[in-house]
């Protein structure tokens, strides 16, 4: 382990920015229920988190991040609005041979506030700017909310939109779906033959003819999806113009004010985007209000799409440009949907982020630099 005491001291110095902002320090258990994490992140989390067993509580995971336990503790006994800070180890499996650390400190700040999301986003981001000042990091911002709103504006069916929404965080599958919905790619093999048979003989006969019913997924469920496929086959493709606007949004990279202008231009053709762009504009104003210069902040629409996290609005990262070997020094974003799932329907808009103090320490000491 690197100089653990020095890293902790570094972390505590950084943390003062958050405690001065009025954040309450919180602790979180080291072992978390594997079921909760698996339900949120899917099976992929097994490749990232360490699993262990408890005789009473069943399968447990060593804390891969603080978001889940902090949200859980807030929904159980938090008052609103609430500001929390935490500092502790997280544990992540790394690719074999990569030499990356498998346990490291995370320093975090989370804000639960339902009054003014733009102001909350700006508050969190400005605190991170302040905490990381002088390190020469490049900030990057994104907004998953814009992408979700853009999907909403497509003139297509709800099931197609739902499929696209579900895969916003999996760019490859998203692209494949979009290609199919726009008619650029063919439907999956065998689809046409299936639909033809169903139209001729009826869905029940086709299912019965395919073999005995085995397993939990019964005939009604299969029939329901076949009906969906029939309806989907009759759905006209998403127009080229609309798909182009979506691609344009996905590839949008510009300083915040210019990005905002471009998005306003798009609302002429896509009025459905207006609300999301209004939120975007309000955030820029709030960032300026927090003393930051929006023109110096880059926006990348696709930023945050490949992270494991559950961000669904504003996202940000702080990167050490001179050190391509280092992961982002800090990341964060808004995760309203996650609080709805964990809070059993009691959603609370939330935004927060984490800093990796050991990376800050490395940057300051020049340790590991080429």
């Amino acid at each position, binding site marked *: 382990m690197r100089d653990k005491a020095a890293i902790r001291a570094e972390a505590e110095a950084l943390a003062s920015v958050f405690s001065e902002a009025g954040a309450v320090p919180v602790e979180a258990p080291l072992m978390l229920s594997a079921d909760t994490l698996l339900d949120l992140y899917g099976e992929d989390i097994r490749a990232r988190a360490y699993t262990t067993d408890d005789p009473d509580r069943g399968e447990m995971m060593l804390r891969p991040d603080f978001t889940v336990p902090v949200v859980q503790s807030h929904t159980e006994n938090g008052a609103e609005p609430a500001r929390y800070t935490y500092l502790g180890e997280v544990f992540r499996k790394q690719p074999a041979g990569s030499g990356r650390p498998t346990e490291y400190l995370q320093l975090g700040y989370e804000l639960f506030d339902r009054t003014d999301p733009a102001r909350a986003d700006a508050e969190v981001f400005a605190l991170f700017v302040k905490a990381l000042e002088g390190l020469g990091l490049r900030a990057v911002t994104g907004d998953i909310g814009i992408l979700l709103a853009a999907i909403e504006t497509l003139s297509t069916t709800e099931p197609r939109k739902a499929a696209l929404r579900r895969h916003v965080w*999996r760019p*490859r599958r998203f692209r494949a779906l979009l290609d199919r919905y726009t008619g650029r790619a063919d439907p999956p093999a065998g689809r046409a033959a299936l639909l033809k048979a169903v139209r001729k003989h009826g869905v029940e006969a086709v299912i019965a003819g395919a073999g005995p019913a085995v397993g*939990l997924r019964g005939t009604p469920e299969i029939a329901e999806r076949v009906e969906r496929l029939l309806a989907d086959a009759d759905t006209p493709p998403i127009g080229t113009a609309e798909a182009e606007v979506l691609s344009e949004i996905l590839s949008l990279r510009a300083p915040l004010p210019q990005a905002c202008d471009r998005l306003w231009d798009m609302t002429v053709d896509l009025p459905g985007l207006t609300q999301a762009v209004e939120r975007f504009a309000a955030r820029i104003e709030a960032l300026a209000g927090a003393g930051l210069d929006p023109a110096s902040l880059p926006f990348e629409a696709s930023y945050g799409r490949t992270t494991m996290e559950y961000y669904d609005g504003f996202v940000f990262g702080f990167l050490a440009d001179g050190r391509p070997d280092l992961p982002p020094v800090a990341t964060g974003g808004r995760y309203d949907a996650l609080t709805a799932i964990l809070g059993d329907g009691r959603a609370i808009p939330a935004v927060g982020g984490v800093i990796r103090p050991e990376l800050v320490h490395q940057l300051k000491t020049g340790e590991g630099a080429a």
Partner: protein
Amino acid sequence: MSIRLGVPSKGRLMDKTFAWFAERGIEMRRTGSEREYAAEVAGADIDLRLLSAGEIPRELASGRIHLGVTGSDLVQERIPAWEQAVEVVAEMGFGHADLIVAVPTCWVDVSTLDDLDAVAAQFRQRHGYRLRIATKYHRLVRDFLREAGVADYRLVDSQGATEGTVAHGTAEAIADITSTGETLRANNLKILEDGLIHRSEATLFRARGAEWTENERGALAEFYEQLGLD
């Protein structure tokens, strides 16, 4: 110091391994009784170890054996970053088996991974938990499904009779090894068209992490020459 070679200790895999080496002029034979798992090699400076095929990946990874014969599926499943730990010396042309994803034949609406992903979403919504895929190849299956962008599934461990899990209601789909597809058909399962995860075959591996002094390297070069390998 001679080279330690691990080969499967029983069954057809052992017989075919012995035959493969015999064809190349290296006679392996068991010594002692059937139960002793002792063996020797005539005609080469090789210390032969009979091991369970399932243990050979571990022995290769730790470098306790220099060479080993086992299924490529086991090596890829059990050794993290296997290409850094072992090197493929020869694909041996037997022990063929495909690791595949299979679903019930009555799922007429599912023929590709794309369908499986859509059904996983539907299943979770309807049943409140993620669609279960029974397998013992957790790493290979998870990597494959992540690459394909399949979500909302859960792997359940099945160390044997995996094809039966669907009929027993403990899984909705399976990912398992098949050679002829006979067992799948008998259990009313079908392979997804793009559901081939890995084409496995008995393979001779070299452990990169074993001790390779000049002695072993010399012995290896000689052994490769006898086998007709470069």
